[in-house]
């Protein structure tokens, strides 16, 4: 527990040292929402919200888009933090010290993930909380079940982060890898549109990503006043993914890590 707390605080201090990054994560959902709204209004004119409602079932464009954007940012933080953590230590020359410390690798990864729970919660509460309070104050309490859906969705996301941490050890080049992964996630999970707009075979891929369910559930909770109980189907899927991804991610990470220890991959740039 002591080691876990140390890793958690180390990660949190690192984030606090670079507040600019946090501000960017807070601003991006608003920026992208504003851009899409601007482009949509330019195309559809006065009919923008009517056309939007015909495709999404709601006229509340801002909240619909902000919810997607906020979930995208949380997955961005997790993939970037957990995915590049090992590589960052490698570049800084501190990986050996970390691996020689009497701490299990799993504790190391979970500690990093716990830091991200705090950061992503802050992003969600500030971005979504403020937006709902201003645009849809009558639904403000719904951000509590929406937040619970996010927390549940974070567990499989950490598993995906472990998976990437392994890939990054193996293939290096984490930043371009993470940029593509974040874009794929944004495109496949319905960040700014319903996934039903995607071709059927792409929707199958969307179905294995936890953010797809989190975004959809949040929209149903905040915009259609549904409860977590009503959404038991997707909650059940999220629970299954929460079990599958961490096990798979950690197994892949351990396998690549063991191989890298033998081949000396860790010391290579």
């Amino acid at each position, binding site marked *: 527990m002591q080691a876990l707390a140390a890793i958690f605080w180390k990660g949190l201090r690192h984030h606090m040292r670079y507040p600019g990054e946090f501000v960017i994560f807070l601003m991006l959902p608003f920026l992208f929402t504003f*851009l899409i709204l601007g*482009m949509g209004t*330019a*195309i*559809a004119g006065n009919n923008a919200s009517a*056309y*939007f409602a015909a495709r999404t079932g709601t006229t509340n464009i801002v909240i619909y*888009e902000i919810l997607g954007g906020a979930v995208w940012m949380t997955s961005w933080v997790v993939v970037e933090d957990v995915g590049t953590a090992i590589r960052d230590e490698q570049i800084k020359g501190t990986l050996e010290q970390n691996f020689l410390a009497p701490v299990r690798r799993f504790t190391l990864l979970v500690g990093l993930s716990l830091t991200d729970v705090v950061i992503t919660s802050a992003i969600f509460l500030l971005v979504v909380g403020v937006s709902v309070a201003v645009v849809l104050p009558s639904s403000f309490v719904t951000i509590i079940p929406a937040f619970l859906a996010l927390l549940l969705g974070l567990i499989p996301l950490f598993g995906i982060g472990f998976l990437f941490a392994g890939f990054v050890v193996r293939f290096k*080049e984490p930043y371009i890898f993470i940029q593509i992964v974040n874009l794929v996630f944004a495109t496949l999970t319905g960040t700014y549109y319903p996934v039903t707009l995607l071709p059927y075979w792409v929707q199958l891929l969307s179905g294995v990503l936890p953010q797809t369910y989190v975004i959809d559930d949040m929209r149903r909770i905040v915009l259609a006043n549904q409860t977590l109980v009503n959404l038991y189907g997707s909650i059940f899927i999220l629970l299954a993914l929460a079990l599958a991804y961490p096990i798979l991610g950690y197994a892949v990470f351990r396998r690549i890590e063991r191989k890298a220890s033998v081949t000396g991959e860790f010391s290579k740039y």
Partner: protein
Amino acid sequence: MNSRNISCPSRLIEEFKASFLKDLRSYFRYPAWVIGEFLSTPLWFFFFALGVTLFVPAASAATSERGPSTGFSYFFFGFIFLILFSTSVWGVGQSVRNEQESGTLEQFFLAPANRATLILGRWARIFLTDSLIISYITLLLYLVGGIAVTILNPTLFLLSIGLYELSLIGFGLFMAGLTVRIKAYNSIGNAIFFGYMIFTGALFPIAVLPQPVRYFSMLIPFTYLNDLMRHAALGTSMILPESLEYIVAILAAVGMLTFGFVAFNMIEENARVKGSIATS
């Protein structure tokens, strides 16, 4: 840029060629980045395009025989502007910062070559790869969505692209100078890029913006260059009367190019005196 580096045209061409080839070699030395760039750019495009689709009536979302809707083309050209503008900020502008971070800035500045030519070599490489990416997305769009992108007035379009590129070089040089002075380049680069997306009418007409913000947009030279290119490509109405907008666009391009050269030279001289060139 110093007097000792002012060279004859043939020498400048040689320097430019050497700089271009050096940058091209560095670019292809990292295949993961090349693949990444070719994958991520169309992904950004489709990501935004799908978002915008929500605002198009369902019946007209499919491609008609007359080609893509004006709205879609408007967005497509906006996306091209973003790709090109990123040349200024992340390409030309960041070139000096990259040399600074990799510890080769001293060699770069000590080379018996014109500094601006060295930076122009990078611009040329990025212009080449940007053109390839834009062509590839256009082809992809045609193959996947059956959407053929057409240009209404190709001559005017080429002329406006030329003016836009001149201003990008100028702005890029200014940004390159800025990196010598200000080390937190990423944050400034992001802020400028986001500002460009919102205020210059790149992705949507400035008429969508509230009135006071529109006045601010009209103070930015890129607003007129974007407007002129889009007018040439799609025949959209212009912000200013046509002849006046041509004059404003030419003045904006020449003005920004001159400003970029002067600003870069001044900042570099200042940094040289203060000894802050290589501090990272």
